[in-house]
């Protein structure tokens, strides 16, 4: 069974995790309506 994407919603937290894990950030701007 595939994983479910665990989205982060805090910008700074995402950058910090990217730095620690040496990964890129996928930033998805979505329509909240």
């Amino acid at each position, binding site marked *: 069974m595939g994983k479910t994407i665990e989205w982060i919603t805090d910008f700074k937290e995402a950058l910090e995790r990217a730095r620690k894990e040496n990964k*890129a*950030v*996928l930033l*998805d*701007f979505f*329509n909240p309506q």
Partner: protein
Amino acid sequence: MDAVTYPNSEVADFISKNLIPLRIGSDVDPYAGQFNVKWTPKILILDSTGKIHQDNVGFYPPEEFIASLELGMAKMDFDLDCLEETTSHLDHILAKYPQTPEAAEAIFIGGVAEYKKSGSGEPLKNAYKKLREKYPNSEWATRAAPYRLL
């Protein structure tokens, strides 16, 4: 994206393994202004300093989305002069997703990365030959056209 692409198990696995997934509403400041969000979905690849390396708008079907994400990772590595990692991502795109629109750009960037590694014009010339043979109608075949003269 929420109905088709993100629930796809291959997409979810790829993102979970390779990227830090961040979701922000298009009305949330300061980020909407900072990243000039005018339409959704707007999908960016950033490095850990917040610098943009790929910027796309609109829906992607699952297979093309994975190729697009990996191309974004390759562009980030290219921009950061991590050329071996760039080539690794591009080779993977060409092996697994040759039918996607991203494949042609992968050949173009791959040629440039090999040129930067070797200093030889041959990889650029070869990239043009491959593009002309496999993706003759792509914009990347046009952009690589001057390399035929090398």
